[in-house]
Structures are given as structure tokens and as C-alpha cells.
């Protein structure tokens, strides 16, 4: 085919995108254990024949519901704090609670997570104080926590960069001999649909594959990279990309906390046993804006949002708990009250976060300092002190 042949290329433009777009953005082979109306599905089969099921106690079902509600409420509180000028920015997880709680609860204590900047739900499930990332968004720090203490890496804002860090960490797990047993370690890397176009993510796929790293790539496909819809990133369903890199991929209903848990637990356990990486595409929807600086009405229509509203992760779990008489009104009221209390508590503590001392900007550039920087710090301090006693 000659490049630039008008007949061929125009025919190609008309015919192919429609069918491939349907394949990329439709919902084939979606692993689902809880329907949008709250019906339980006993088991679901993945594209490679794996059968997924969960076996939770009533208490555990209620616990997942509580996680979902708390995570949404704390997220809403953070959005409100931004609107009131108390945070510089907030990246809301609204709509993605089930993907994050399901995968977050699937992690075992020894597992390591590498988040983007939106994994507040995973962070919560790791037992981390939800105020921890708020310093970053308030501008009082840059996310300064110890990844190894919390088994949760610092938030990463450069899209996809953390997938390579997760891959290297997972190679280290392997080199430390911590795979191959049921109590082995596994690693999970979070990223979004937009990130799948990044070189780093594709390099991470290659690396994890050839080194058989104990790693789960967890892609929350929330349909948008800020304004760009999924079809600007891919012409095949994202989970199928895994095949080309030599490891399994599965698409799960990311608004179904049970299925999200089941596929993640299975993938993590395979990884810790030494069976290598896999890709999970959690098919979900970003109900809110990309961040508080974004205006989604410029690029998507209300009916699309309404259609996803009907698949809400919390509503379906609530419907299930009601129908199965696992929870009653008193329980739901108690959860709401806990969420309200925790949100208020979070707000109070955010408002009390102190601004850092200006001279602290010189801290921690180098582990053992630098004479040049020490001299700059001294000059800065002297300059600041020259204002003491003045009206400025």
C-alpha cells in the first residue's frame, strides 16, 4: 500500500476507527461479582479461564462498605477544603472507590504499593492516617513520608514514572529471595489509562516481564486523561496489551469492590508465588474533575456522567447489604456518622498544619549536605534576619 494513496487512506479512516473504538471502550470480558443493582454473581471467569470468587463473612462485607463510605467522605472533605482555599489542589477519587478499596484490601501486610497522586483510598486501606497526603496538596510539604515504613510509596505526579520504581522494587524483592512462598512479598503499581501511553509504563511492562518481577500493574481506566478520552490513548482494550508483553491481563468492573478484590488478590498471590507480573484494568469512571483546577463540562456530556452514576460503587454495595439483610438502617446511619466525624477531625487537623519555616527549603537536598548550599542557607538566614524589627 502506497503511503498517501488517497483512496486507501480515506477508506481506512472511515472504516476502522469505529469498530476499534467500540472494542477499546466497550465492556467485553468484564469480571464482575456484584451488578450495579446489587445482585451477587457467584463467580466470574477471566479471559485466561481463571475463575474469580470471594468468600467474605457478613462482617467483612460490612467492612468493605464502611471503607467505601469513609473514603468517599474524606475525599469530599478534601475537595471542600480546596474550595475554601485551605488546599492548593485536590485530585478527587470520586467514582473510583471500589477499585481502590478492593485492590487496597487485597494487599497483604508485607506487600508494597506505588501510587499515583489519586490513591487516597488505597492509602486509607493501608491503615495510613488520611492527613498524610494533605500536606502535599496544602503546600506545607512535598509528600514526605517513608515508603518502607508504610509499605506505600510517596505519591508520584509525573505520569507513569512510579511504574518503573515499582518494577525495580519488585526485582529487589526477587533478588532478596522473598518470592516463591505463600508469605512472599508482592508489589502493586497504580496508574491510569492516560499513563499507558507513556514510555515509562511500557518500559516497566518489558522489564517486569523479562525479569519475572512479582508485580501487579493496576490500571484504573477512569476513561479520561484530564480531557482526553480513552480512544486517544488506545485502539485496543488496555488489558489486552499485557499479552504482547508476555503476561496475563484481565479487565475487572472497577466499580465492583468484590471483583476488584478478587482479581487483585489472585494477581498478587500469583506474583508472590513467583509466577511473575500481570495487568489489571479496573474499568471505572472519574465522576468528578481531573483535579479541582479542571472543568469537565468542557469535554464530556451530562448523560455520560448520569449513565455511570447508575453504576455507582457504593449504591450497589448498599443495595446488596440491604437485600441480603447483612446490614440495617442503624448500621448505615452509624457508618455515615463515623464518616462525618472523621471528616470533621481531618478538617480540624488540616487547618492546624503549620507552614514550614522558610529556611527549611534548604533541608534534605543532600543526605550529608553540601558546602555550597550551606553557604546559601547562611546568606538567606542573614538576609531574613535583616528584616527583624522592620514593618516588613
Amino acid at each position, binding site marked *: 500500500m502506497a503511503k498517501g494513496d488517497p483512496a486507501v487512506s480515506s477508506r481506512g479512516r472511515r472504516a476502522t476507527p469505529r469498530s476499534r473504538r467500540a472494542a477499546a471502550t466497550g465492556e467485553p470480558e468484564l469480571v464482575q461479582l456484584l451488578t450495579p443493582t446489587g445482585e451477587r454473581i457467584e463467580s466470574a471467569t477471566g479471559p485466561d479461564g481463571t475463575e474469580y470468587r470471594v468468600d467474605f463473612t457478613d462482617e467483612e462485607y460490612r467492612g468493605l462498605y464502611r471503607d467505601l463510605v469513609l473514603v468517599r467522605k474524606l475525599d469530599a472533605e478534601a475537595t471542600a477544603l480546596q474550595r475554601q482555599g485551605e488546599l492548593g489542589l485536590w485530585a478527587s477519587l470520586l467514582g473510583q472507590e471500589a477499585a481502590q478499596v478492593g485492590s487496597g484490601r487485597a494487599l497483604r501486610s508485607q506487600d508494597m504499593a*506505588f501510587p499515583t497522586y489519586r490513591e487516597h483510598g488505597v492509602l486509607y486501606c493501608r491503615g495510613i492516617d488520611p492527613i498524610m497526603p494533605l500536606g502535599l496538596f496544602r503546600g506545607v*510539604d*512535598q*509528600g*514526605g*513520608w*517513608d*515508603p*518502607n*515504613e508504610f509499605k506505600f*510509596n*510517596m505519591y*508520584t505526579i*509525573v505520569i507513569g*514514572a512510579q*511504574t*518503573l*520504581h*515499582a*518494577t*525495580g*522494587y*519488585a*526485582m*529487589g*524483592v526477587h*533478588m*532478596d529471595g522473598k518470592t516463591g512462598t505463600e508469605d512472599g512479598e508482592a508489589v502493586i503499581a497504580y496508574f491510569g489509562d492516560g499513563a499507558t501511553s507513556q*514510555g*515509562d509504563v511500557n*518500559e*516497566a511492562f*518489558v*522489564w517486569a516481564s*523479562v525479569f519475572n518481577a512479582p508485580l501487579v500493574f493496576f490500571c484504573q481506566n477512569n476513561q479520561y486523561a484530564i480531557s482526553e478520552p480513552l480512544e486517544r490513548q488506545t485502539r485496543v482494550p488496555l488489558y489486552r496489551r499485557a499479552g504482547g508483553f508476555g503476561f496475563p491481563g484481565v479487565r475487572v468492573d472497577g466499580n465492583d469492590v468484590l471483583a476488584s478484590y478478587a482479581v487483585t488478590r489472585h494477581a498478587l498471590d500469583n506474583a508472590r508465588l513467583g509466577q511473575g507480573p500481570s495487568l489489571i484494568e479496573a474499568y471505572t469512571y472519574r465522576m468528578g474533575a481531573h483535579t479541582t483546577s479542571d472543568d469537565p463540562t468542557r469535554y464530556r456530556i451530562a448523560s455520560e456522567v448520569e449513565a455511570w452514576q447508575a453504576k455507582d460503587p457504593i449504591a450497589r454495595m448498599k443495595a446488596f447489604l440491604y437485600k441480603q439483610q447483612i446490614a440495617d438502617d442503624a448500621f448505615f446511619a452509624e457508618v455515615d456518622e463515623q464518616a462525618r466525624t472523621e471528616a470533621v477531625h481531618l478538617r480540624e487537623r488540616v487547618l492546624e498544619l503549620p507552614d514550614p519555616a522558610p529556611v527549611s527549603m534548604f*533541608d*534534605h*537536598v*543532600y*543526605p*550529608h549536605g*553540601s*558546602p*555550597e*548550599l550551606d553557604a546559601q542557607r547562611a546568606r538567606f538566614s542573614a538576609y531574613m534576619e535583616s528584616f527583624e524589627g522592620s514593618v516588613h
Partner: protein
Amino acid sequence: MATETLTLGKALNTGLRRALENDPKVVIMGEDVGKLGGVFRITDGLQKDFGDQRVIDTPLAESGIIGTAVGLAIRGFRPICEIQFDGFVYPAYDQIVSQVAKMHYRSQGKVTIPMVIRIPYGGGIGAVEHHSESPEAYFAHTAGLKVVTCANPQDAYVMIQQAIASDDPIVFLEPKRRYWEKGPVELDAPLSGAYPLHSARVVRPGADATVLAYGPMVRTCLEAATAAAEDGRELEVVDLRTLSPLDLTAVYESVRRTGRCVVVHEAPGNLGLGSEVAARITEECFYSLESPVLRVTGYDTPYPASRVEEEYLPDLDRVLDAVDRTFGW
């Protein structure tokens, strides 16, 4: 004390071997570093002796090398990454500048990235494009990174071990055209008593003018000093060794004595290391200067075709020409 005559490349190889022996968390990773021993053979024999979990042939993707090394460092390893040639480091630039350099700062000191990024750099070997570049200013401009370069086998042997032992992420620039040059190396001297990594060193004393260089240009400047001495002019040559942080204490002392200073590097002059050095000398030694600080550098062009690289690169005559001009001011 065992002193052997080694090439600069073999000195690096021996230093890397020592580091692998001394710390089981040290790993080497890069393209062709294993069975082949690297395209310049700097890692020759190391995979054979330490295994493919310590000396890792990676996929061909530089961002992946640095990005996975970040994860290994978080896990507690001390990765030494080889970038095959200077001109191939740019795909890793984002990981180096946005991730490696900032991890310690962002984490408020809770994460250290004790990574060494080895880059053969500079021209003079008749290579095709992308194989002769001097990217040091990009890295020296970035807070959180340290940048060093060696100029002789003894420094190569010691500095590579010091860089690996350091908790800082360090860009370690290797003057590739000097890989085959030989010199004495003290193999048994303890690292603890070695000359400090982030220190410049006077490599030839002189009273008439100060000449600053680093990496491949140190030898060029020493040769210029020999030629100048035949004309009765004594040049003091300083090997900067550390490009970030700069160590200019000895330089200031020298310039206050000589009143004249020439900075020499292969990299283009515009916003190069020489510009920063000249600015600082002007700030510190203004009343001692008999002439402006002059720079002898590569030109502000892309690195040219190799048949004209001798005209592009600073050489003995261009260094002496600049010294002459400081006397004619």
C-alpha cells in the same frame, strides 16, 4: 603498598570490583554490561565473578535503567547504572531530574537514593554523532544530584568507590578518550584516608596564571602548561574533579596569587560550567584580577562531524592562546 600501572578503564573496573566485593547490596545494571563487559569493557569479567543478579544486562531503555534503579534503591540496594554513551542519557533525563534528584528532598530525608550513574562522555575518539557529548551542565544545574569526573587512573579507581559509598545520587562522568591512558594506581590504600571526593586539586603549581579543567581536558591543560613553561610562563593547573558541588576554595587562593584565570571544557560555552566558575571567581577575586576570566570551550554548535572535531575541541594551542590574551588585557 601495591602500586600498579593501569589504564583508566582498568582502574574503574578494579574499583567496581572492590565495591561489589565490599557490599552485597551493590549491583551494576546497564546495556551490555554483563557477558560483553560493556562496550568499553569497564565491567569486564564482573558478571562472570559476581553473577547475573549483581551485574545485570538490562533491556535497551535508559529511562527503565534509571527508573528501576530508583525502586531498587528504595528497596535498599546501591545501584550503579551504566549509560552506554553520553548522547543516550536523555531518555533517562526525566527519571534522573524529576525522580532521582528529588526523592531525598521530597521525603524530608526519609528516602536516600545511593545511585551512581556512570556516563562515558566527551569527544576525541572519532565517533559518529551522539557518542561525543559533554552533558555535565544539565546535571550540575539540578539540585539533589552530585556530579564528579575523573581525569587519571588513580582518581578513577578511588573516586568510583567513593561515589558508590556515598548516599548521594552521583552522576559519574568518565572521560572516554582517556580510558586507554595508563598511570600508577595505589590499590591497597584505604578509602577512608583518600583525598575527599568533592574536592578540587592543584595538579601542577605555577605562579603566572591559573588554568581550570576537569575530565579529558586536564591532560590537555597539563600539556599546555609544559609548553608554556618552555616559554618561561608558569601555569597553575587545577583539576576541578567535582562539578556539583563545586569546590573553588583552592581556585580562589590560586587566582588571588596569579590574577589570571582560564577555564577549559569540551562542552559548549554558553551556560556551561565555565560560566558559573567565571562568575564565582569574579565575585570572590574581583580586586585580584588582572583580566577577565576567559573560557576555552566547545563551540555553541551540535557536536560536529568527527573529521572536524579536533577544531571543535579545546586543545593545547587554544588554551595557550587564551592564556596569552589574559596577559594582553
